[in-house]
């Protein structure tokens, strides 16, 4: 099936540093999402993105977070500065339409903040 690729698969950084998580969504998809998962528990919505803009963001999407997709390249999640509570697995997802509901997820980027 369609694949969403995420880079890196695992990153360890010191608190206060910046991190960028990269996502290569399914090629013809137009809507992009980031979710946060801690310890294999609930998937928490962070943000969704369409046509170069953030459509909706949750309370978990702190001011230190930002997303962009410059010129159709990677869809990125940047955290600057990082905090201990940002340690989690971040999943990127994409979908073709805004009401089909069918999201395809990547394998996740595990972030460890020390």
């Amino acid at each position, binding site marked *: 099936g369609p694949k*969403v690729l995420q880079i890196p698969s695992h990153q360890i950084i010191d608190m206060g540093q910046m991190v960028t998580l990269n996502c290569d969504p399914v090629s013809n998809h137009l809507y992009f999402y980031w*979710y946060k998962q801690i310890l294999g*528990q609930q998937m928490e*919505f962070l943000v969704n993105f369409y046509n170069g803009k953030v459509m*909706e963001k949750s309370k978990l999407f702190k001011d230190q977070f930002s997303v962009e997709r410059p010129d159709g390249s990677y869809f990125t999640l940047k955290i600057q500065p990082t905090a201990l509570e940002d340690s989690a697995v971040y999943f990127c997802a994409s979908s073709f*339409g805004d009401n089909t*509901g*069918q999201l395809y997820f990547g394998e996740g980027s595990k972030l460890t903040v020390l």
Partner: protein
Amino acid sequence: QQQVRQSPQSLTVWEGETAILNCSYENSAFDYFPWYQQFPGEGPALLIAIRSVSDKKEDGRFTIFFNKREKKLSLHITDSQPGDSATYFCAASGGSNAKLTFGKGTKLSVKS
């Protein structure tokens, strides 16, 4: 406020038995309900989904039963196999926004 609830938190069945995973929701605007299967270290993968206009959706050994009036649905896995051991997430979305709201998941173990 938990908009999508799942039970049980964990479930163990024997190979060949039927596993029943439950889900309920609060938001009447939800009209699309996918179930995702997640293995450790992997991303969630869409397993089966139902829209609120239907009360049943079947795909092989996996069946969703949906009760719109009670805002409840369940995933039945018949002839459970050890390879079905995973965490299953019920999710919901509605209106013009495909954003999915997830439940906390049910961890299924199938013993042989």
